[in-house]
C-alpha cells in the first residue's frame, strides 16, 4: 500500500437510500454477527412527514482523527495507511470509553456482556478483518471476513439495493457522486458505482 493512497470513506446518498436494510443485514450475515450487534444501522428521520423524511445508513466513519483511538485506555486501536480504523480485540477490555467518544455510536457491545465470538467490542472493520493473520480462520471468527485482502468491495456497499451507499477512497466517491449530480436531467446513464475504480481491478 502506498502512502499516496487516499483515505477510505463511506458516503450514503440520502436521495437514494430507502431504508431497506440491505446493507445492515448483508453486513451481519457476511460477518456472522450475533443478533444485537449492528456494525451498520439504517435510520430514518422525520418519518411520515412530507418533504422532510429521509433515510441514511451509518457505520463507523473511519475518522481521520479517530476519537475512539484517542480515548482508548489500553490503546487497542490502530489506523491503517488507507485510513481504515481497526482495533485489536485481544487487547480491548470492553470498557466502553470509545462508545462515549464516537459521534456515530459505532462501537457495539454484546448485549449479555460476555465476550462472545466477536470479542469485547465490535465495530465496522470496513470489511478489512483485524490484526491477525490475513484470512485465517481465527481472524474470520473474531473480526469477520477480510474482503479488502481479497480485493473485494465491502459487502454493505456492494449489496446496497439502490447504490446509495458508496465506499472507496474519498476522491473516487466524490467523483461518483459528482457524476450523479452533473448528469441530473441530462438523460445520461449513470454507471453503477465503479468497482474497477475503487480497487483498480
Amino acid at each position, binding site marked *: 500500500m502506498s502512502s499516496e493512497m487516499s483515505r477510505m470513506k463511506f458516503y450514503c446518498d440520502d436521495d437514494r437510500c430507502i*431504508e431497506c436494510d440491505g446493507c445492515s443485514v448483508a453486513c451481519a450475515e457476511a460477518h456472522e454477527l450475533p443478533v444485537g450487534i449492528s456494525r451498520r444501522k439504517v435510520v430514518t428521520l422525520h418519518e411520515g412527514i412530507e418533504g422532510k423524511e429521509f433515510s441514511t445508513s451509518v457505520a463507523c466513519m473511519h475518522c481521520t482523527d479517530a476519537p475512539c483511538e484517542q480515548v482508548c485506555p489500553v490503546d487497542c486501536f490502530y489506523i491503517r495507511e488507507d485510513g481504515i480504523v481497526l482495533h485489536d480485540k485481544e487487547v480491548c477490555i470492553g470498557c466502553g470509553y470509545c462508545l462515549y467518544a464516537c459521534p456515530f455510536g459505532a462501537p457495539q457491545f454484546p448485549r449479555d456482556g460476555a465476550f462472545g465470538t466477536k470479542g469485547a467490542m465490535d465495530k465496522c472493520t470496513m470489511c478489512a478483518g483485524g490484526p491477525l493473520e490475513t484470512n485465517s480462520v481465527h481472524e474470520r471468527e473474531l473480526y469477520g471476513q477480510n474482503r479488502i485482502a481479497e480485493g473485494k468491495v465491502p459487502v454493505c456497499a456492494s449489496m446496497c439495493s*439502490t447504490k446509495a451507499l458508496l465506499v472507496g477512497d474519498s476522491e473516487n466517491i466524490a467523483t461518483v457522486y459528482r457524476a450523479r449530480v452533473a448528469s441530473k436531467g441530462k438523460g445520461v446513464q449513470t454507471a453503477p458505482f465503479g468497482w474497477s475504480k475503487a480497487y483498480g481491478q
Partner: protein
Amino acid sequence: MANTWGYGAMTNSLGDIQNSKAIIIFGANPAVNHPVGFQHFLKAKERNNSQLIVIDPRFTKTAAKADFYARIRPGTDVPFMYGMLNIIFKNGWEDKKYIDDRVYGMDEIKKEAAKWTPEKVADVTGVSAEQLMQITKVYAKSTPGTLIWAMGLTQHSVGTSNTRLAPILQLSLGNMGVEGGGTNILRGHDNVQGATDMGCLADTLPGYYGLSSGSWKYFAKSWGVDYEWLAGRFKSKDWMSKKGFSLARWYAGVLGGKPGEDKIHNAGTNLKALFVMGNGITSIAQQAKVKEALDNLELIVLADPFVNEAAILTDKKDDIFLLPAATQFETSGTVVATNRTAQWRYQVVEPMYESKPDQDIMFEFAKRLGFYKEYTKAMLMRDNKTEFKWPEDATNEIARIIKTIGLTGWTADRLKKHTDNWHMFDEVSLRGSGPMKDEYYGLPWPCWTETHGGSTVLYDINRSVKEGGMGFRNRFGMEHNGTDLLAGKSSAPKGSSNPNGYPEINAKNIEAVLGITLTADEKAKIGKNWKVDTSNIIAEKCMKAGIAPYGNARARAIVWTFPDQIPMHREPLHSPRTDLVKKYPSFEKDKENHFRVDTKYGTLQSSKDWAKEFPINLVTARLVNLNGAGMENRASKYLAALTPEMFCDIHPDLANNHGIRNGGMMTIHSPEGTHITVKAKFSFSVSPDRIFIPFHFAGVFQGRDLKSHYPDGTAPYATGESANTVTNYGYDIITQIPETKGGLCRIEKA
C-alpha cells in the same frame, strides 16, 4: 388488463423505467416491496428529472422520494383516474391519433370521465382538486410516462375496474407500447408471473388456455394421454370445464352448508382434504374462517421448507402431515421475474436434512395414486426418450406446448445461456451484446420461436416483430356493434408485410394475411391456429413476414361481457362514507357460484351502517424485511430482529383520542367480529382516519399464543397476530381477489 389488450402482465421492464419522464404509482410501494427494482426509479429521477407521483393511502417510503404525493382514500382509485381523464380530455391533452388507430370504445370513457369533475373527485377521494389538476398536468405533459401498480390496486371488490382503468389512462396519453411508458404491474412473490403463466390456477390451464373441452383436448394430446381417459379422472366432463375453488375462498368449500355460510357448488361434496405446497395460507383474508375450515378437514398435507403456519393455526388433533420440501436453492428451474424475464435458478446445494424438492414429492404421489406414467410422459415426447431429466425436459415440454404467451423459445439450453451470460446485457434496454446479440435478457415473453430474442416492451409497433415488436392482440373478435376491432391503417409493427390491422393467424387465413403460399407438406403439418400449432409453421412464417401471430387489433376500453362494461366507481363493501355508498353502491346482486361459492356484494354493503360502528379505515401491506406469510423470513434471525413483533402504525392524534400510547397495546376489532391486540407505533405516515398493519405475522390468534403448536425446534424467531384475522369480507367480482385494501375497523386501548 388481459381484457384490454390481450395479456395481463407487466408491459415494460424495470430497467426501462429509466427511460420515463414521469412515473405514477397507484397502490404500490416499490421502495419497500421491490427495493432493488426501485433503484431504476431513482435513476430515472436522476437521469431524466423524471417526475415521481405517488398515490397512496399512506405516506410510504416510496412517497418519501416522490415529487408529488396524494393521500387517497382507500378504494377510490377509479374516481381519481376518471378525474385525471376528465382534465386530460377537457384540455385536449389526449393522443388523438393513437386513440383513433389503436383503441376501441374511448368515447364511452370520455362520457363517464366528464362526470368526474375535480371537485367531485376531491369529495370522493380526499385529494384536493388543485392537487389532482397539478398531478394530471405534470403527468400528461411529461411523456413517456409509466404507470405502476401492485396489490394496492387489485385488492378491492372493484380491483378489476382499477386494473382496466389504469391501462385506459395510459392509452389516452399514447403511453402504451413505448419505451419509458407502459403499465407496469409489480408482482409479489418471486415467481408469481411464472406460476400464473403455468396456470397453477382455478380458472385456466397452463398458458391461460381456459377450461373448455377444446383446451383440454389440446393438452391431452400434448401430454400424450387419451382425452377420454383424462376426462374420466374428473367427476364428469362438466366439472372438468368449471372453475375450481380459489386460494381466496377455498375455506368456503369446507364450511359450505353450515348455517350462515355462503353456499357452495362443488360436485356434490364439501372439501375434505387440503394439499398445500409452499403456500403460506396464513396470509389470506378471513383467518378465523380459515381456522375453522382447517379444523374441519379430514386431511391436511403441508409441504414446505418451514412449518406452514396453517398447522399452527388449527386445533385439529390428527392427520396433519408436514413434509419437508427443499428450498429453491436445493433444486433448479426457471423463475420468471415481474417483467416476463426468465432466469435459470441453478441449484446451489443438495437438499438439506431429509427435505425433498417439490417435483420428487409430486412424482412419488403420482406413483402411489396410479398415474405416474401418464403424468410424466410428455417429458419424453420431444426427443422420444425413455428417461427424463428434471427440470430440463419439463422446461422443454412447456416450450413445446405453450403458444398463447409465446414460450416456444424458452428452451432449457437458451435460458441457461442467458443466466450464464447475465453480464452481457444492458441494464436499461436489456439488450445483449457479444454472443447474446439480438436477444433481450431472459427472453421476455412472447418469445415466438427458438431464435426469437424475446419482447421487452409489449405492444411496441416501432420495432419489428423479430425485435420484439407487436400490436395489440386480436382476442375479442373482428367487430363489435359494427365497429372494426382490428388496428387502423399503417399501425402494424415496423417492417411488416401487412401494414394495417390483421386478425390472429390460423391455418385458413395465413396465406391471405401474410401474402404467402404454403407447400402441401406445410399444409399437412400446420396446426389449426397459432395457439395450438405445435409444428411452429405459423410462428416461423409470421417472423419472416414481420407479423405477430396473435394479430394486430385495437385495445378495448369496453368489456361487453363484464357487469361493468366500462369501469365504474363502487364504494368498498365496508366504506367509511355511508353517504357515498348510496350514490355509488356495490353490485346490487350477489354473485352466484363465483369460483364455486356464492359471494356477497350489495346485500352485505347495505345491510348495516358499517361506518358508524367501525369508523377507521384499515390498511394492510408489506414490510421490507418480510414477505408473504413471512414464515421463511421470520425464520432468519437477522430479518426477524428488524421487526421482532407485530405492530400497528397509528397517527398520534387518533391514538390520543383512544388513550393509546406509543408502544402500548391496542385492540383492533373487525366487522367480522374478530379482533387482534397489537403494539401501537406512532407514525405520521398514516392520517388520523386510518391505521396500517403489516400482514406477515402468524402464530398468535385473537390473543391466543399458539407457540405450543410448533413442533420442537421449528418455531420462527418472531410470531404475532395475523393482520388477516381482521381484514374484511369482500372479493373482486371477476378475479375473486379479496378486498384487503379497503376495510374498516374499530380500535381501543388494550
